C-alpha cells in the first residue's frame, strides 16, 4: 500500500530528530532543502517541458534576498523568505515571457546565461552581496528565540519539503498541471483548446523560481554563509541531474533524487578524489537503465506489488 508507506515515511521524518545524531538531522534537512529547489525544476522542466539551467540563480535570489533583508532591515525570516521568493517568481515570470522569442535549446542557453549573469552580479556588486568573499547569514529568529540548531532548522525545513512534494502531486489533478503538460506535448494543441501558451510557460518559470528561491533561503539558513561559487551554472546542472535521476514526472522524484545526491557523496567518501568519477558513472548507469528516473522505478515496483 503506497499510502501506508508514505505515512510511515512521514512518521519517520517526524521521529528522526529525536533519535538521530544532529549530523544526520542536518543531512536530512539538506535533503529537504534540495527537494524544495528541485521541485521547482520538476514543474518547469518535467511538467512544462522547458529546460531551465537557471535554478541556481533563483536559489541565489532567495538566499541572498532573505539574508540581506534580515541584515539591512532586520526583516524577520518568515517575512523575508516569502518576499524574496515572490521577487524571484516575478523575475521567473518575466524570464518565461522570453520564450516568445527564444524556444527550446535557445531558451536553455538563455537560462544558462541568466544564471551566469546573476553569479557575476553576486561577485561584483560587493556592496550589496559581499562579493567574492561571501556573506554571513544572520540566524532566523522567531518570537525572540533563535533558530540555529539543526533540529530547529529541521522542523522548519521539512514541512516545506513535504509541501513542495504535495504541490507537485496536486498539480497532476488540476487544470494548471494539465495545462503545463499540454503545452509540453503540443503547443498548437494547447492553444487550440484555449490554453494561453505563453502565459503558462511564464507561470511554470514563476512557480519554479518561487520554489527555487524558497529552497535557496532555507539553504542560506543551513550553511549560515553564502559564497557566489555555490550558485553557478554547474550547480544548476547538478540540480537538473537530481531532477532527472529522481524522475521528472514523479511527485516523489525530487525527494528521491535529493536523497541520493546528498547521501551518496557522504557514503562514498572512501573513494577520495575519485568520488566525482564514481558518482558520474553511477549517474550515467542510472540514466541508461532507468530513463524515467528512480521515481519511475519505484512507481513500477509499486504497480507490480
Amino acid at each position, binding site marked *: 500500500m503506497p499510502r501506508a508507506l508514505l505515512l510511515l515515511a512521514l512518521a519517520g521524518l517526524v521521529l528522526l530528530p529525536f533519535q538521530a545524531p544532529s549530523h544526520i538531522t542536518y543531512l536530512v534537512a539538506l535533503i529537504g532543502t534540495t527537494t524544495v529547489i528541485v521541485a521547482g525544476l520538476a514543474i518547469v522542466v518535467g511538467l512544462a517541458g522547458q529546460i531551465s539551467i537557471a535554478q541556481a540563480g533563483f536559489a541565489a535570489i532567495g538566499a541572498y534576498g532573505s539574508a540581506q533583508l534580515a541584515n539591512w532591515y532586520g526583516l524577520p525570516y518568515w517575512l523575508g523568505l516569502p518576499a524574496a521568493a515572490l521577487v524571484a517568481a516575478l523575475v521567473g515570470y518575466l524570464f518565461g515571457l522570453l520564450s516568445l522569442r527564444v524556444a527550446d535549446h535557445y531558451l536553455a542557453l538563455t537560462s544558462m546565461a541568466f544564471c551566469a549573469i546573476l553569479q557575476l552580479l553576486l561577485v561584483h556588486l560587493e556592496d550589496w552581496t559581499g562579493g567574492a568573499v561571501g556573506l554571513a547569514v544572520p540566524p532566523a529568529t522567531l518570537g525572540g528565540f533563535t533558530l540555529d540548531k539543526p533540529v530547529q532548522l529541521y522542523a522548519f525545513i521539512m514541512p516545506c519539503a513535504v509541501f513542495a512534494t504535495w504541490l507537485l502531486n496536486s498539480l497532476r489533478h488540476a487544470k494548471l498541471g*494539465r*495545462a503545463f503538460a*499540454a503545452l509540453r506535448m503540443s503547443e*498548437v494543441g494547447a492553444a*487550440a*483548446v*484555449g490554453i494561453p501558451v505563453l502565459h503558462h510557460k511564464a507561470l511554470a518559470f514563476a512557480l519554479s523560481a518561487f520554489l527555487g528561491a524558497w529552497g535557496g533561503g532555507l539553504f542560506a539558513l543551513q550553511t549560515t554563509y553564502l559564497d557566489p561559487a555555490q550558485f553557478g551554472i554547474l550547480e544548476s546542472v547538478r540540480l537538473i541531474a537530481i531532477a532527472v535521476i529522481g524522475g521528472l514526472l514523479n511527485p516523489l522524484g525530487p525527494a528521491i533524487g535529493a536523497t541520493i545526491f546528498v547521501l551518496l557523496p557522504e557514503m562514498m567518501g572512501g573513494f577520495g578524489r575519485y568520488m566525482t568519477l564514481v558518482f558520474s558513472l553511477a549517474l550515467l548507469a542510472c540514466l541508461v537503465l532507468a530513463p524515467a528516473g528512480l521515481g519511475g522505478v519505484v512507481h513500477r515496483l509499486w504497480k507490480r506489488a
Partner: protein
Amino acid sequence: MTATLHVERLGIRFGGLVALEDVSFSVAPGSIHAVIGPNGAGKTTLINLITGLYRPTSGRMLLDGAPLSGLASHRIAARGVARSFQNTELFTELTARENVLAGLHRHLHYGLAETVLRLPRWRHAEREAAAQAEALLARVGLADQAEVAAGDLALGQQRRLELARALATGPRLLLLDEPAAGLRAAEAEDLVRVLRDLRDTLGLAILLVDHVMRVVMQVSDRITVLHHGRLLADDLPEAIRRNPQVIAAYLGGAPHAA
C-alpha cells in the same frame, strides 16, 4: 440570420507564394459545410487562418458578426472555435480522459491555492469535469479507453478523441481537418453519424475539410471548392457534383465524381 462564420475576401501569401486569395463564403448556423479541393488548394491554410495560427494578409473573418482576424489562437478558441488537426495534436502522454479534461480548461474556475488545499471548489469543479469528460468520451465511443494514453490509441480513435477534446471547449463552430482520411468504410459511416448528431443535437456549425467524397457528399449541407487558393464554387452538394469546372479541377477531366 447572421452566419456563424463569415469569411470575406480572405487572402494570405507566404513570401511570393499566394496560398489563398480573395476567398469569401459563409457557414450557416447549425449546418455542415465542407471545403474541398485538390492537394495544395489551401484548405488547411484556411483552417489555420480561422484559428489564428496564421495571420491573413488581406480580408477578414467574422464569428457571429465579431471579427476574428488578429486574435491569438487561444482567444479564438475562447470565442467558441474548436478544431481538429490533420495529423492530430493530442497530448500523447496524457490519458484520453486527461486530454478531454485539458479541453475543459477554460471552464474550470479555481486557483492553485484551492487545488493544494483540496478545497470544495476544486473538488466540485474536478468532479463535474470528470463527469463531463466521461460523457464526451462516451459520445465518441471511447468510454472504455478513458485510461489509455492518447498516443497508444489507434488512428481512428485518436481522431475521435480529438473531436471529444474539441467539443469539451464548448464550441459554436467546429473545424475538422480531414477527419475521414484513412478511415475504413465502417469508420467513415460512424463519422457521418457522429457529425450529423453533433449538428442536430448541439446545433453546432461544422466546417469540414476533406478528400473523401463519399463522406463529404453524404454529410454536407453546402460545399465550397477551392482550387489553387481561389474560390472555384460555393453551392449545394448536388450542384457541386454536376459543376463541370469542379469536375475538371478535381478529377483532371475524368467524368465520374463520387
